[in-house]
């Protein structure tokens, strides 16, 4: 699982951490039941404040992607696993749209309309 954030970006750090973890889950790099690193550890590795990571984890928990349990840390939920499957469908969708010669803008518009 590769997590990267950009300190020069306008986006807040906690939002970037959440996005990075979300992407990892969606891409199936962290699967349902997998344990994420502790907030302390991730904060040290990324050189950010521990509260930034906790904030990101709380957001992911509110989205239902992870469970935060005392003693066990952050664990990817079944919902998180299901999203990885959805991402595989999206990749497939992208391939088919490309094969049909559709423009990305059209595909995005169609997907948006379906939501």
């Amino acid at each position, binding site marked *: 699982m*590769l*997590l990267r*954030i*950009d300190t020069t970006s306008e986006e807040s750090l906690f939002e970037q951490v959440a996005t990075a973890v979300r992407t990892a889950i969606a891409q199936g790099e962290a699967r349902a039941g997998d344990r994420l690193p502790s907030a302390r550890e991730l904060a*040290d*590795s*990324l050189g950010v404040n521990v509260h930034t990571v906790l904030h990101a984890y709380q957001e992911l928990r509110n989205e239902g992607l992870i469970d935060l349990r005392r003693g066990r840390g952050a664990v990817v939920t079944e919902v998180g696993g299901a999203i990885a499957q959805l991402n595989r469908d999206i990749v497939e969708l992208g391939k088919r749209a490309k094969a049909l010669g559709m423009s990305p803008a059209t595909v995005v518009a169609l997907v948006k309309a379906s939501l």
Partner: protein
Amino acid sequence: MNDMTVTRRFSVVGVVAPAVLTAAALGTQALWMGDLPAPVAIHWGANGADGSGPAWAYLLITLALGFGLPAWLWGTGLPRLRRGARGWSFRFLAAIALGMSAFAAVAMTWAVGVQRGLESWTDAPSIGGAFGACAAIALMLGFIGWAVQPKQKAVFDEIAVDEVTLAEGERVVWLGTAKSGPALVAAIILAIVLVGAAAVASWVAGSFGAMWAFIGLALVLSILAMAMLEADVRVDATGVEVRGPARFPRIAIALEDIASASAINVEAIGAFGGFGWRRVPGAQGVIMSSGEALRIERVNGPDLVVTVPGAANAAAVVEALKARA
């Protein structure tokens, strides 16, 4: 030494010589079968023979002990060597195979030989001294078996490393988990269950000393298993860290101590002689499975090889961090 020599000497030392020794021993024992008491002595204590069994048990033990490992080397080691795998443990296992089969052949044949013409197995003379001599012969043959084989430097096929570029101000962490394969996990659990059952059996039998010994063994096995089965790998700006559950065992290498990172395919048995946290000449290994592994070459010191899924990605991150440092 060329490649043919490695394979040829491995098969002579590890397979052919043990086969010849075992066959000779079996032949000799078979010739003597008619002259033995029935049953024969098969176990000796401090006061001479104290256990008996059928004479064919010797043939079976000679075959199992003398040709078990060689057969395995023949079936799995040799094909792997032919496919280009190399590692010190091939050489080591072949030498062990020769020593073991020499011991089995000489010791078992000796134990049969001294019982020819006896009325009863209880008359069997002590064979302790002969066994000592056999062990010495086995050790000597093992050394010879090691010496006549050429040195094997482990070869790994490299896996193409992904490309990761880091911008100024970007922070990155790569996290992975090295896990054991299901067969290894099953084997370890089985071992623990068996030891646990032995503890219960000792308790039922009223042998509390044995019970505690088995409980202790089960605990040690469990702890070893925990350390053996899983390890977390982390790559970040400080360097690379590998650690077992409960943060032990642990190996950390600072980024500035890393010469290079790459991804390789590892043959656990061939290159590291097995699984777990291992040390072989030139490398430390955290080997949970065969396959994809991250290799860190230190500026000074042995390589670190960790089998972990996504190793190519991890190696790329290390290289990107180094390039920016």
